[in-house]
């Protein structure tokens, strides 16, 4: 057993917590599910390897020429922006989670040591998640193109370490500039924007330059290849490392670990100060405008809807999630604008994107509204029927979805009224279907558990995704004017029927 109060002892404690946290996330807290989860993970890994084979199999023999280096570097930057976003999320969570904070800070253990380990844990977890996600692609490339591709694991780990280091620096900077109260919301929004901006930025460039939604189009452009740094530049080291250059790999890993080490050395003390500052936040004073000075006359249903909308509006996490949804709608909106100028037939491509986004957004909102009721006893003991309560909550969800998507559909209507009509129908149906699925699998939870809503029912999560996809396909085919739209519609209805059949009975 390691001596207490050493870095190794603290690290083993953190690793044990991380492992149990992950296990709980996978099994939804039920150890009996461990075997099922293992089988599901193996099947999922096999499917991912097949998918990876179809996507990157042809590139296994790639050599470090300039075109390849540009494409690989682009992919690294894209993935890294997502890792940075994930790391910022983790750092923000570490700042605001109380959990064992009181115990730690009340103990004689050095706070600097504890927070050094916590920063390292964030780096490790981000790197591990990235390696797990990249594994199918790296494995396929190594199998087809040789062991040199295994160096990509090292690059991914280095990217995780670098992302954690920068995330800590960014979040600490936010704390110092805008304070503990505002950092939570702003950091989550910044994380969402960072995660989406790189992917979306490339898509925007692709649309503007090539009329394509593919984010890889700009990476393969002759102009970019010509104007990129010289092939001998250190800029290409990460890409060279991915392609199996051992020296480049060593350099990339050394730089990233040094940056992470420096980040730990510089920020671990401040990290502790900021965690304590975050824990000491008192109630947020809400400024009231003139209209909200007194009580307003409301029916029970209207009071419920108003409450849901107020809570949604004041939920920083949801604001960032909604922002992400809206950001992902930016490329289709841009496509709309370009198509509107020249040719309206390309608008069909927008319809499924909008419908899919509506289904996903409604699923999240429905979970918050139906399952994430923080005062279930209060609502259940109110003199209003359970049916009316549910209806009011559904109205709150559908109202929000309508509010979010109305401007886009309005713009679509200017270009193609038929496409707009189909899209609005699709949005309503997909949102209603996702809400129905959440209703079938409703559980009693806290709103703060939103992040883990997938674990409460994986069937609901998958059903919601497949339902949204099926309705998106239906809308796309309907907008194209083909009767084949009936096929995905039947599948979507089948999914709903299946959900009703297998959902737990109240």
């Amino acid at each position, binding site marked *: 057993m390691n001596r207490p109060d050493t870095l190794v002892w603290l690290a083993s404690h953190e690793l044990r917590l991380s492992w149990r946290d992950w296990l709980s996330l996978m099994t939804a807290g039920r150890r009996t599910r461990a075997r099922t989860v293992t089988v599901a993970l193996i099947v999922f890994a096999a499917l991912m390897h097949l998918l990876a084979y179809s996507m990157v199999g042809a590139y296994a023999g790639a050599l470090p020429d300039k075109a390849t280096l540009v494409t690989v570097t682009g992919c690294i930057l894209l993935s890294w922006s997502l890792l940075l976003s994930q790391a910022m999320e983790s750092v923000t969570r570490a700042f605001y989670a109380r959990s064992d904070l009181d115990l730690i800070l009340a103990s004689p253990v050095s706070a600097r040591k504890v927070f050094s380990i916590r920063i390292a844990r964030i780096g490790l977890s981000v790197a591990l998640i990235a390696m797990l996600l990249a594994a199918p692609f790296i494995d396929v490339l190594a199998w087809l193109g040789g062991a040199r591709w295994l160096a990509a694991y090292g690059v991914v780990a280095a990217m995780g370490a670098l992302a954690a280091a920068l995330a800590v620096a960014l979040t600490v900077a936010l704390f110092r500039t805008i304070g503990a109260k505002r950092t939570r919301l702003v950091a989550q929004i910044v994380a969402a924007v960072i995660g989406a901006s790189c992917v979306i930025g490339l898509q925007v460039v692709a649309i503007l330059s090539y009329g394509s939604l593919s984010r890889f189009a700009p990476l393969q452009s002759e102009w970019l290849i010509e104007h990129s740094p010289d092939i001998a530049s250190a800029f290409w080291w990460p890409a060279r490392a991915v392609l199996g250059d051992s020296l480049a790999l060593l350099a990339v890993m050394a730089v990233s670990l040094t940056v992470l080490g420096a980040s730990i050395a510089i920020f671990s003390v401040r990290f502790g100060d900021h965690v304590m500052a975050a824990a000491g*936040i*008192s*109630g*947020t*004073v*809400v400024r*009231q405008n003139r209209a909200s000075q*007194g*009580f*307003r*006359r*409301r*029916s*029970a249903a*209207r*009071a*419920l809807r*108003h*409450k849901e909308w*107020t*809570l949604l509006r*004041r*939920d920083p996490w949801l604001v960032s999630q909604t922002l992400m949804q809206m950001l992902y709608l930016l490329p289709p909106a841009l496509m709309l604008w370009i198509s509107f100028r020249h040719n309206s037939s390309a608008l069909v491509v927008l319809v499924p994107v909008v419908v899919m986004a509506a289904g996903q957004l409604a699923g999240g909102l429905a979970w918050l509204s139906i399952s994430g009721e*923080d*005062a*279930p*006893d*209060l*609502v*259940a*003991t*109110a*003199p*209003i*029927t359970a049916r009316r309560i549910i209806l009011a909550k559904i109205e709150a969800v559908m109202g929000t979805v309508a509010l979010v998507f109305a401007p886009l559909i309005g713009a679509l209507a200017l270009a193609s009224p038929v496409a707009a009509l189909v899209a609005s129908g699709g949005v309503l149906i997909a949102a209603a279907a996702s809400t129905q699925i959440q209703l079938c699998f409703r559980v009693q939870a806290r*709103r703060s558990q939103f992040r883990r809503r997938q674990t409460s029912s994986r069937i609901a999560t998958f059903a919601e995704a497949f339902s949204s996809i099926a309705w998106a396909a239906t809308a796309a085919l309907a907008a194209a004017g083909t009767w084949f739209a009936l096929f995905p519609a039947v599948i979507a209805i089948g999914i709903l029927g299946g959900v009703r059949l297998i959902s737990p009975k109240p």
Partner: protein
Amino acid sequence: MSQPLRPIALALRALCKRYDRPAVDNLDLTIYGGEFYSLLGPNGAGKTTTLRMVAGLLRPDSGSIAIEGIDALADPVAAKQITAWLSDEPMIYDKLTPFEYLEFVAGLWRIDAATAEARARELIRWLGLEPHAHERCEGFSKGMRQKVALAGALVHDPKLIILDEPLTGLDAGSARQVKNVLKERVRAGGTVIMTTHILEVAERMADRIGVIAHGRLIAEGTLDELRKKSGLQTGNSATSLEDTFLTLVAEPMAPPVAAE
């Protein structure tokens, strides 16, 4: 103790609820209007299950519940209109202010806005929440959250107030404020039924005390009547409710007995 002239606020008849074992077993209970009734019992005795059934949060397997003469199982909405429920874990919305929370509760109970606002302001003042009335509840202490929840339970002026361990985790000052508000409600003609593990509270506040074990009412009455039932000396100030309670629950299989 016979109280024939007083209206019955709550009547439970042959109430049963079973999980893997009977939680509430053929329970008969009568609480009169304007009475402060304390329900005591060891952990797992069935107190919370009983109160949750009365509040409409659980459906009994069999039996009947009448609140102010309204059949709560046949017409739950009417019964809920005159009932309030408060548990030991205050369930409020972190992102709402106490004032907004009370406005929401008033909306749920369809209380006239002006009346509800006047009551809310009065409750906020009584409970010492004025300085925080327009702050979000997310930073509130347990005591403050419980006071907000209590204000929510009272803002619709219920006839029957059901409280499950409402003083758990409250500091002395907050506990006194809550007790004062409850006493005031009883003085104004309201009925309170409360479970508590703080026997001193039951001893000081309750008009009658019911002791429940294994889902059955094993004793009921005033403190003196319970002392008599337990075989301990009546009028002996050294014989506290704690002694009486421990003596009573030490015989868990005793048949249901009313002190009368």
